[in-house]
């Protein structure tokens, strides 16, 4: 009998596992896939190392900082800052027609940029920042306020509003067209006020640290162990039934599989309370270059672009939305030594239904076609690198479903979050994407806080 079974060996599940194993629980993490990492795993292809997702870690505060999510999670997992070997970004841009705002891990740069490009807005921008600093991320009542309404009051230049929304939505909005004010404030702080960074070895370094920690504390991990259903008796879960039929008993379950996905696993016949599923998914192109991007004149860490004055954050009608995107070069961080390969990755919004309905032959052709279109769209905003490409990869919304089981390939899950992590069953809880915090740092914090709140107090 396990004290806690955790469904999913992504960031949130592993972080929760560390907390529970540290405090001597018998814990089992069950992962359907043959490897750990979920939405942010890693793989090797034709002799090169790739990360599935990682552009950058958010919330990067310098070593020694005591505040903020990064400091909090290091303390909670008993990791030291050096364990994650994070190198800060070189600097990133938000590019709209005729306007470019640069930012780095020091908010002053963004302030100067706003003052230069939007001189009439800077006082208002400062007041907005003061309000965001004040925002209490433990006060859930703020979550319901529309960030668009709030920003329309705070700033009077709609272009600046769009330019601020673009990176924050790309890196963490499950909702189309808008964000909750709470989520906006959290994302603003994590990207503009704290900052971006990356370990030289990429996401594998983070995952290895988490798994080593977890196993070192006696935590158990089973791969290729998909949970098929949750056995329910009298309003309690008694255990799980795996896809191979095996049954495992536990006193409680913490699931990172997603809200609806978890509800559907309950075999108590209770109607699944329907929730608006997330609709926002991505295509991502990855190009390996035979040179470092800076030799082509590209030294930006992330370039968020939009080719008109209005930024449209919604599921595209077309297979991919070519009007906006995120261009990332993993090379452009302040490392001590260069990476082996030059790499440029581009993220674009994508339509899950389109990609899902293709047969294998068409899927392959469409991938090639849209790889080219996305890249052609991006090189309007960064130096053309296409003549230096030596290898490519690409993934689509269906890849995301295959690797994580998230409905619709919705990277940030459902727009409706379950902030308290509770379900209709007294000993079943959710963490990760659908609990409320997204991104790598966010989901780790989610795993920790759900483990603390629901699995450690008794």
């Amino acid at each position, binding site marked *: 009998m396990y004290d806690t079974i955790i469904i999913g060996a992504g960031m949130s599940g592993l972080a929760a596992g560390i907390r529970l194993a540290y405090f001597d629980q018998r814990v089992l993490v069950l992962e359907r896939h043959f490897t750990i990492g979920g939405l942010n795993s890693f793989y090797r292809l034709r002799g090169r190392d790739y990360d599935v997702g990682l552009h950058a870690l958010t919330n990067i505060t310098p*070593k020694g900082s005591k505040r903020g999510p990064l400091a909090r999670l290091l*303390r*909670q997992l*008993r990791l030291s800052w050096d364990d994650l070997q994070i190198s800060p970004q070189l600097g990133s841009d938000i590019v709209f027609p005729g306007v470019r705002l640069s930012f780095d891990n020091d908010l002053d740069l963004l302030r100067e940029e706003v003052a230069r490009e939007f001189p009439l807005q800077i006082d208002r921008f400062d007041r907005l920042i003061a309000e965001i600093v004040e925002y209490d991320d433990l006060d859930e009542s703020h979550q319901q306020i529309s960030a668009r309404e709030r920003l329309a009051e705070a700033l009077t230049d709609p272009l600046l509003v769009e330019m601020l929304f673009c990176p924050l939505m790309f890196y963490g909005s499950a909702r189309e067209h808008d964000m909750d004010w709470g989520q906006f404030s959290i994302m603003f702080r994590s990207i503009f006020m704290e900052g971006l960074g990356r370990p030289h070895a990429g996401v594998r370094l983070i995952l290895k640290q988490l798994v080593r920690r977890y196993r070192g504390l006696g935590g158990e991990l089973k791969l290729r162990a998909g949970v098929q259903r949750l056995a329910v008796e009298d309003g309690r879960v008694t255990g799980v039934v795996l896809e191979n039929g095996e049954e495992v008993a536990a006193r409680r379950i913490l699931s990172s599989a997603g809200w609806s996905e978890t509800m559907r696993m309950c075999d108590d016949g209770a109607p699944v309370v329907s929730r608006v599923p997330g609709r926002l998914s991505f295509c991502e192109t990855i190009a390996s270059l035979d040179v470092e991007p800076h030799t082509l004149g590209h030294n930006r860490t992330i370039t968020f672009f939009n080719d008109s004055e209005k930024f449209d954050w919604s599921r595209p009608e077309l297979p991919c939305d070519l009007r906006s995107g995120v261009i990332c070069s993993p090379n452009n961080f302040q490392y001590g030594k260069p990476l082996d390969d030059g790499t440029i990755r581009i993220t674009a919004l994508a339509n899950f239904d389109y990609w899902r309905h293709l047969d294998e032959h068409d899927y392959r052709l469409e991938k090639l076609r849209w790889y080219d279109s996305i890249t052609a769209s991006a090189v309007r905003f960064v130096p053309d690198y296409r003549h230096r490409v030596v290898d490519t990869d690409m993934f689509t919304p269906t890849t995301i479903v295959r690797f994580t089981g998230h409905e619709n390939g919705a990277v940030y899950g459902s727009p409706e979050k379950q902030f308290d992590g509770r379900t209709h069953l007294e000993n079943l809880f959710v963490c990760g994407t659908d609990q409320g915090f997204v991104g790598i740092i966010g989901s780790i914090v989610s795993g920790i806080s759900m483990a*603390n709140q629901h699995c450690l107090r008794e």
Partner: protein
Amino acid sequence: MTAAEIREEILDILEAIAPDEDLSNIDDSVNFRDQLELDSMDFLDIVMELRKRHRIQIPEDDYIELASMNSTVAFLEPLMKDIQKV
């Protein structure tokens, strides 16, 4: 454990929770929260570490007793008097 030993133990726990923190100048009469920037998650950890190390259960209503070093030691003394320092 004596009061002095309990104090040592609490310092040890604080060091585990906040390894980068300088604990040598801690003022026993001042709230931890004010001098160490501990948040509610960290307070839960003090409780959890005591449970892990010494099997002491502290009910949630008593968490406020852990505000400063002085109050913590005073609160723990009767609970830990029979525990041997290892």
